[in-house]
C-alpha cells in the first residue's frame, strides 16, 4: 500500500487525506498546531449563503476519520529529502517518516497589516485585521477595546493584495466578498452600526457573490466608497480618523470611525525549508507553481511532490475542497501509470 505524506491539516489537507484513503492509500496527515482545521477553524460563516464554518469543518474532519489516516498533531516538518524509494521526512518530534509521495497543503499566511504602518495596526487598538473581525463575529462580541459598542465600522479592501509597494501584485480573491459578508453579519447583529467599505475594485468572482454585494447595499445599507484609505490616526477622544480619496467624485475625504478592519490578503507559505531542500518551484507571486496551469494544476516540478489548496494561490473554501480532491486524484493517476 502506497504511503502519502500530507503536510498541513487545513481543509485542503483534510479533504485530500479523506479522498486518498478512499482510493486505497495510507496517509500521514502532518499538522503543526494542536488541532485540524487551519484558518477555517477561525471562521464564522462562509459566503455566499452564510453556512456555518464550524459545521463544514466538522463534516470534513468526520470524513477523514478513516483507519488508513494517521493524524500527527503538534508536528512540524523540519526537512524532507527525495531518494530512490520516495521521500524521507524529518519531523519536529525527532522522528522520520518515509513516504512514496508528498502532498503539500500548507495553506496561506495572512498578510501582516503592521507592514502598512500608515493604517496604524499594532499602534491603535481599534485597527484590526479581517481574521480578528471574524473572531468578533464568532464570539458575538463586537465591542471595541474600551468595551463600548462601535458606532461606525470601516472595512478597507486590498491590504497587502494588489499592492506593488509590498511586493504583492496579485488579488487575494476572497477579501472583497469577506468584507461584504462581515459587514452584513455586523448589521444582522446590530443594525445601528454604520458600515463602510473602501475599495479599489469590487471583485465578486463566485456564484451568488454579486447578489450578496447587491444585498449588502440594498438591504443592509452598507456604504461602498471607491478609494483606498491613505492613513489612519487616533483622535484625542480615541476615535479613528481616516483619510481617503473618493475616486468617483475625485475629492479627498476625511472620516471618523470607531473600528477599522483591514482586509488582509493571503501570502505564500512556499518559503518552507523542506520545499527549498526539494527545490519545489515557485511563481512570481511566490506561491507554488504548477507544471501546467490547465491540465496538471496539482503537479509540481519535483516528481512525486503535489500541491493542494491555497499554497498554490488564494482560494475560497469551495475551491479549496474541490482542489484537494483533484490533488488526490492526481496522485492516484501518478501511481496508476
Amino acid at each position, binding site marked *: 500500500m502506497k504511503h502519502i505524506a500530507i503536510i498541513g491539516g487545513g481543509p485542503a489537507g483534510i479533504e485530500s487525506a479523506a479522498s486518498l484513503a478512499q482510493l486505497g492509500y495510507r496517509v500521514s496527515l502532518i499538522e503543526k498546531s494542536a488541532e485540524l482545521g487551519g484558518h477555517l477553524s477561525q471562521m464564522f460563516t462562509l459566503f455566499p449563503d452564510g453556512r456555518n464554518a464550524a459545521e463544514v469543518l466538522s463534516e470534513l474532519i468526520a470524513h477523514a476519520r478513516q483507519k488508513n489516516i494517521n493524524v500527527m498533531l503538534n508536528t512540524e516538518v523540519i526537512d524532507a529529502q527525495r531518494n530512490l524509494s520516495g521521500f524521507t521526512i524529518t519531523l519536529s518530534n525527532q522522528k522520520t517518516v518515509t513516504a512514496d509521495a508528498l502532498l503539500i497543503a500548507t495553506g496561506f499566511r495572512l498578510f501582516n497589516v503592521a*507592514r502598512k*504602518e*500608515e493604517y*496604524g495596526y499594532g*499602534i*491603535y487598538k481599534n485597527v484590526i485585521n479581517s481574521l480578528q473581525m471574524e473572531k468578533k463575529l464568532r464570539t458575538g462580541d463586537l465591542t471595541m477595546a474600551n468595551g463600548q459598542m462601535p458606532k461606525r465600522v470601516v472595512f478597507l479592501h486590498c491590504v497587502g493584495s494588489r499592492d*506593488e*509597494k*509590498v*511586493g504583492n501584485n496579485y488579488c487575494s480573491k476572497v477579501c472583497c466578498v469577506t468584507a461584504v459578508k462581515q459587514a452584513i453579519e455586523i448589521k444582522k447583529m446590530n443594525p445601528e452600526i454604520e458600515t463602510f467599505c473602501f475599495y479599489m475594485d469590487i471583485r465578486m468572482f463566485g456564484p451568488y457573490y454579486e447578489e450578496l454585494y447587491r444585498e449588502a447595499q440594498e438591504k443592509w445599507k452598507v456604504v461602498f466608497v471607491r478609494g483606498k484609505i*491613505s*492613513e*489612519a*490616526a487616533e483622535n484625542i477622544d480615541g476615535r479613528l*480618523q481616516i*483619510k481617503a480619496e473618493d475616486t468617483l467624485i*475625485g475629492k*479627498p475625504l*476625511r472620516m471618523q470611525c470607531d473600528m477599522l478592519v483591514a482586509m488582509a490578503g493571503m501570502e505564500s507559505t512556499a518559503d518552507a525549508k523542506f520545499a527549498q531542500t526539494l527545490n519545489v518551484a515557485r511563481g512570481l507571486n511566490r506561491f507554488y507553481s504548477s507544471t501546467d496551469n490547465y491540465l496538471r494544476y496539482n503537479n509540481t516540478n519535483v516528481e512525486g511532490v503535489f500541491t493542494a489548496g491555497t499554497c498554490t494561490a488564494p482560494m475560497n473554501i469551495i475551491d479549496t475542497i474541490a482542489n484537494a480532491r483533484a490533488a488526490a486524484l492526481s496522485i492516484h493517476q501518478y501511481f496508476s501509470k
Partner: protein
Amino acid sequence: MTQMPFDIFVLPFTLGMSLLFAYLLLKYAHWIWLLPTDDKLRILKGFFSQKSLRACGEIFMESLLHRKIFRVDKRLGFMHMSLAFGWFLLIVIGAIEAHTYAGGSAPFYFPIFFRFFVPYEADFFLSSVYVQLMDAALLLVLTGVGMAFAKRFKSNIVGMKKTTKLRRRDKAVLYSLWLIFPMRLLAESTTSGLHNSGGFLTGTLGTIMSYILPLQYMEYPLWWGYSIVLCIFFLGLPTSRYMHIPTEMVLIFFRNWGIKLRPDNPILEEVMILSCPRCGICIDRCQLNTNLNINDTQAVYFLQRIRRNEDYTAQANNCLMCGRCASVCPVGIDLNAIRNRRRLNFTPKEVVLPYDNKQQRQAKVVYFAGCMGHLTPHIKNAMVKILQASGDDFWFMDEEGGVCCGRPMKLAGQVDAARQLMDKNRATILQSGATVLVTSCPICYKVFKEEYNLNISILHHTEYIEQLLKSGKLKVTRQDMMAVYHDPCELGRGSGIYEQPRNVLSAVANLTESSNERRDSLCCGGSLANLTLPSAKKHELAKQTMQVLTANNPDLVATACPLCKRTLQRAGDTLVMDIAEVVAKAMECK
C-alpha cells in the same frame, strides 16, 4: 629679433587657434549679454573683488591640479592632473622661453613651434634650464595620455569600474588630442636629433632616432602633422566634450561672483552642461548602474543628451535624485537642479489643491510631521511624546492633516502648484508666532529651509532632540543595542546634517559604523523623485542598501527619514526605527 620667423606649416594651427578664440569670445559675450540684469550687476561688482582672485585659485586647484578627482581616486586624479597641468606648464614655460629668446614680441605661434625655429642649442638666459623643463612637462603630459589610452581598454587601471561610452565624434576629437603630444615629441626629437640639441627626453630620443631613421626627410612632415592635429583639436573643441576646458573657467567665475541657477534663466545651466568633461566619475556612484545595471541615465549621459538636442524625457525622470553623483562631481555641477529644471518641460501644470486646513494656534514651537510622518505613525507619536516631555509650548500643526510642504510637487516639476502649497503653509506658520519649526521629514525640512523664507529657526527633529539633550530638557537611558545609522539623502547630502543624528543616536544606543556613510551613504531606493523605476526595482535597491547597512549584524538600523524607514523596513529582517522612536523608547526606560 631681426626677421619674423615664419613657415607655411604654422597656418593650420594659427587658423584653428584664431577661430577658436573668436568663437569663445563671442560665446562668452553672448552668455553675459543674456544674463538677467541683477546677475550682470553681480559680475560688475565681483569683477574687481577678491571673488575673482578666489576663482583663479579655484581654477588652479580644480581645473589644473584636479584636487577633487584626487579625492575620488589618486590614479584617476594623477591622470587628469598630468594632462591638464602638464599642458599648462608646456604653454607657460614655452611662452617664457620663446619670449626670453626673442627679447620681446613674437608671433603667437612662435612658442608652439619654438624648437623648429630655434633648432640648435641657443644660448640665452637660463636656456638650458628651459629645455629640460619643457621636456619634463612633455613627459608629464605623455604619462597622462598613456594612462588615458590604457583607461579606454581597462578602466580599472585608474580606479573606475565603468568609463564613459563615447560616440564617433567624441572619439575623433579624443584621438586628435591624444596625437598632439606624441606628434610634438616626435617633431621635437627629430629636430633635436638633426641639430644635436634638445633635453633629456627629446635630445635622447632624437639621438637614438638619428641612428636608425632618415630624420632629414621626416622633420618637416612631422611639424606639419603637429600643426594639423592641433588645428583639428581646436576646430573640434566647441562641439566636443573638450568645450569643458574653456567653459569650466567661466563656471568657476560665475559661481564665485554669486550667479545661481534659476528657473527663469537658462544661461548658467548651459554653462554647467558645457562644463561637463564627461569624466564619468558619476557612473560608478549611481546605484541605478551599480545595482540595477541601468546604463543610460547617469548625469554624464543625461547632460550629453541635452547638449545634443536628443530626447531626454526618460533620463530626466529615471533618477533617484539621491545626489551621490553631484557630491563627487569634480566640476561641481548642480546635477539635481538641472534634472529638476528639465522635468518642468513635460509635466502638467494644472493641479487641484487638497482640502484646506483652517486650524490655527499660537505656540513657541511648531511641529510639522509631514505626509510621510503621518504615514509612519510610530514616528509622529514618538515626536509628540518627546515634545510633551520637553516642556516646550508646542503646536502639532498638521495633526488633523495638513497641507503638503510642496516639495514632492517641486520634484515632479510642478513649480506653480508647489508655490501655492508653500504660501499656505508659510502663512499658517507665521501666524502661529512660533520661533522654532520642527519637522520629521527631511524632504519637508529641505524645502522649509530653502524655499520658505521663514525668519525662524527650522530644525529637523534630530537637531531639535540634540538641543533638548544638550540643555538637559530631555532625559534618556542608553539602550543596550548596537545601532547603525543610515544617512537619508535629503538630510545628509541634501542638507548637510550628518553629526546631529549621530550625536542623538550615541546617547541612546551604541553607534556602529557602516561602509557607506555620510557623503557616501546609499539611497534607500524609496525616492519620491523617481517617477519611472518600477516598485520591484526600488525594492531591489532597498534590499541591497539594507545588506550594506547590516553587514556588521547590528540590532537596529536607525534613520531619520520616514520614507527611508518605510522603505528599509520592508527590505530586511533587522529592526528599522527612526531616531525619534529610539529616543522615545529610551525615555521610558528609567
